[in-house]
Every structure is written in C-alpha cells, then in structure tokens.
C-alpha cells in the first residue's frame, strides 16, 4: 500500500515538467516561533506526513523572533526553489503588517501562499459568576458601567485583543484591555474572577469551558463550531443586536513559499499538503487542536483569503490603536 502511494506520488510528479526533478534534496519548513506551540506541532505533524509522498525528508527549523516576522522574512527573501517553506499565520500575514511599522516583507508581493492548514474559531468566554448570561446581557452590562469590565488577551495585537476591540467598536461599548503573556495566565485570572471576559482561541479555552470554570457566550465564526454546538455565533446574535452581524474572526495558519516559486512546484506542494491533511490520522489530530477542516483548498483561494484578511485587520489595527515597535 505504501509503495503504491509512493508510486502514485511519483507518477503525479512526472506529469509536470518543472516538478519532474523536484524535490531532489531535503525540504526545509521554517516555523517562525519557538518549539511547542500549536503552529509548531502542526508543522511537525505535516513534515512527518509529507516525507513519504515527496520522497525527501522535510526538516522543521524553528526561527523565532519579532512575532514571527524574522522566520517569514527569511523565506520571503530566500531562494524561490520550492525547498524553503514557512508556516505563515494570521499574525505574520494579516496583523503584523499594520502592527509593525517596519515589516521587512510584503505578505502579498513577497510570498506565495500554498495551503491553509488550520482554522480555529475564537470564542467569547466570561467568568462564571458574571451576571450576564448571554451576549445581549453582556452588552447591556458593559453599557451600564462603561470602563468597569476588563477583557484579557494573550498579548497586545493578538487575535484575542483585536476581536475584543472589534466587539467594542461594533457594539459601541468601552472595556479595558488587560494584556497577558499567552492566553493561559489570562484564563487563570478569569477563573479567579480578576478579569471579566476574553476572546480566546477555542482550543485553549475548551477544557475550561467543558469543566464549567468559565462560560462560553458566543463563537466568532459564521457557522457554529462542532465542539460547542449549543453556543451561538456572534453573527447569529447579530440578527437581534445591530452591529454584530457578519462578525467573522478565526485564527488560522498555513504554508507559504517565496513569491517566485514555480507554479508547478506550488501546485504539487499544495496537492500533497491537502492529501496529508485529509489523511484520517492527521485530520483527527488537527481536529483535536480545535480546527474544523478549512473550506479553502487551492493556493488561489488561500491567496485571496490572505488579501481579504489583510484588509480587515489593517483597518482593525488602525482603529484599535495597537502598535508593536
């Protein structure tokens, strides 16, 4: 069976002219963060799975620094030969361009986006003893006592922070932002009742929601998450509360290469990554990280998605006033 797969992969490879000799040496997959985060874990998962169909080892290399910008820049400015890949994410492609005044790369001009790997919803969680039982009541509470409620986030300029700012903007409320170093300590402070709410990545707050230490009021995607089928989306709430309609924010990451990488190589890579993602074991692991299988399946769709997200967050960062350097 395995041999058959290798054979098939080779057969596909032989079909395209440029891809014929590619890959003839090991590939490098740069993770622009320190080892251990969800992006790093999924990179290692993918690297292990790609080795067989590509017939070459995929070496994961961590190049942390400057919110991921160093690692992404390395690939953006590196050789466009298809041997140098990077784990790109919402932070490095959509948020950092406006958060950092001197980003060394252009997320659309310097990179080609190959495949979207993971898309995790954000979830609005509140402390268990907060009087508000749903989003409407939360908005009412926030309007009643402006500046009294505290919302936490994993860091300044994180998706959690920006989702909070977007929520404030759309509902016309005022709450104080309390930044933490990662969402875990923020979650702990919320369990202890020191902060009132936060927008968190579903994967990190799911255990606490399940154990009833915090309550989920809404998710931030257009569709309900299969992990929390009873929790409404902010878009749904938006049917009765003006302003929240169309609220759609996910945390996502994928694979990108340098802009001038040949089309054939990008296509082959995209096909292999999608195949790896569809493998039941990988699918199950990614699901465990809170990801629903993304609907975006081609490099073109992914690029269009990146462009749209870049536009949204540029606007949002500007209005939130967040800055990183």
């Amino acid at each position, binding site marked *: 069976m395995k041999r058959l797969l290798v054979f098939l992969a080779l057969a596909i490879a032989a079909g395209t002219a440029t891809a014929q000799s590619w890959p003839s*040496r*090991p590939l*490098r997959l740069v993770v622009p963060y320190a080892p251990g985060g969800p992006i790093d874990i999924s990179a290692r998962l993918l690297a292990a799975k790609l080795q067989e169909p590509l017939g070459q080892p995929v*070496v*994961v*290399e961590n190049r942390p620094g400057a919110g991921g910008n160093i690692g992404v820049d390395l690939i953006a400015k590196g050789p466009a030969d298809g041997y140098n890949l990077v784990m790109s994410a919402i932070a490095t492609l959509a948020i950092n361009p406006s958060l950092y005044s001197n980003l060394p790369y252009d997320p659309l001009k310097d990179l080609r986006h190959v495949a979207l790997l993971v898309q995790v919803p954000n979830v609005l969680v509140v402390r268990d003893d907060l009087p508000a039982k749903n989003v409407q009541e939360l908005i009412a509470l926030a309007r009643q006592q402006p500046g009294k409620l505290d919302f936490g986030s994993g860091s300044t300029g994180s998706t959690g922070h920006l989702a909070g700012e977007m929520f404030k903007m759309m509902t016309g409320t005022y709450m104080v932002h309390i930044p933490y170093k990662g969402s875990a300590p923020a979650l702990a402070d919320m369990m202890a009742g020191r902060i009132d709410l936060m927008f968190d990545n579903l994967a990190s707050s799911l255990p606490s929601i399940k154990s009833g230490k915090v309550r989920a009021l809404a998710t931030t995607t257009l569709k309900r998450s299969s992990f929390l089928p009873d929790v409404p989306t902010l878009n749904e709430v938006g049917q009765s509360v003006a302003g929240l309609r169309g609220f759609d924010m996910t945390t996502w990451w994928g694979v990108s290469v340098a802009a001038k990488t040949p089309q054939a190589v990008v296509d082959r890579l995209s096909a292999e990554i999608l195949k790896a993602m569809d493998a039941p074991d990988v699918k199950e692991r990614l699901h465990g990280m809170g990801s629903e299988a993304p609907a975006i399946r081609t490099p073109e769709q992914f690029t269009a998605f990146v462009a749209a997200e870049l536009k949204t967050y540029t606007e949002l960062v500007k209005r939130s006033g967040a800055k990183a350097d």
Partner: protein
Amino acid sequence: MKIKNPQDFWAGLMFMAFGLFFVIVALLFYQMGSAVRMGPAYFPVVLGGLLVFLGAIVFARSFMSQLGAEVTAVKLPFNIIDLVVAVGVFVAMTYLAKALGISNDYAMLASALIVSVLSVVYRPESKALVLILASSLAFAYLLKPLGLVFASAALIFISAYGGHEFKWKEVAWLTLVLVVFSVLVFVKGLTLPFPICPDFIENCPIR
C-alpha cells in the same frame, strides 16, 4: 583623593554607566506614563536611576576602603583601551559589510579574526579570554555556510589554542571524536536542523 579600592572604583563606574544608559535610552525613546498608567519607560527609568545611585555609592566607597589596593586590585588581562579597540573593530567591520553589501556574518567572522590576532600578538595574557570568545563566534557564524563538521573543528582548534598547551595530534583526535558525537547525538538523535556538510557540496554523503 587616592583610589584605595580599584575593584569598587571600576564596578561603581560600570554600574553608573549601565544605569545611565538605560535611563537615557528609555527617556529618549519610550513613554514614561504615570504611576497609575505606567508607560514602557517607567520601570527602566526607576531601576536605572537606582543603579546609578548604587553605583555612585560603590564608587565613593572606593576612596574610603581600608582593605588596601593590594587585595582589591583589578586583575584583568586587558585595559580599557584594548576594550575600546575591540569594540571599534566590530563596529568598523559591521559598517564595512554594510557598505560592501555583504552579510553581516562575514563582518563578525572578520572582527573575531582581527581581535584574535591582535590579542595573540600584542596581549598574550588575554589569549585565553579572546580565543574562547572568538571560538564560539567562529562556530556560530561558520555553521550555516560550512556545516557542523568544519564549524566544530574551528571551535575546537581555536579554543584549544587558547589553552595552556596545544598538541596538534591530540586536538585532531578530539575533533574527530566530538564531531562524530555531535553528528550522531544532535543531528541524528535530537534532529536539530544543522547542516553537516558545507553549503557548496550538493550531495552530502551523510545527512
């Protein structure tokens, strides 16, 4: 006024210099904020100020010590001018690399080489210090272009030269053993993404 405790004299100066540096940079570039809403400059300015104060006490104390300059002599193998020269070499090379449009890595390698040669020729007593520091720079900046094998060899030879006795044969054997160990444990075992062979060799026999 006579300096009675040179150690305290220089330590005081060092603390004051560090403190002033942090205070000035923080005040120039970052917002101070208030005690209620502290800005990014608040903490560094307070701490830097405290360091200047403590440095000043240590400095002042150096004129009143009763320990005697013998006990508290500063036994550094270089003087402050040597330090300035070394820093100057690094700065000059960095600018040269920028002007030539080549990677700063070469500037670091060149500076390490220049300072090492200067040290061996003019300040033999600082040989150990300089060569140990230079050897780790050589390793770091040679690892990507030349691979683990040659970078390790560079580190071992340079640092061993900084030791008391240098025996070619022994160092060569040591290099062989350590290179084999590093390749097996770090690259094979712990899967660190280090190149083994130099960049220009297309098909490395081991990878």
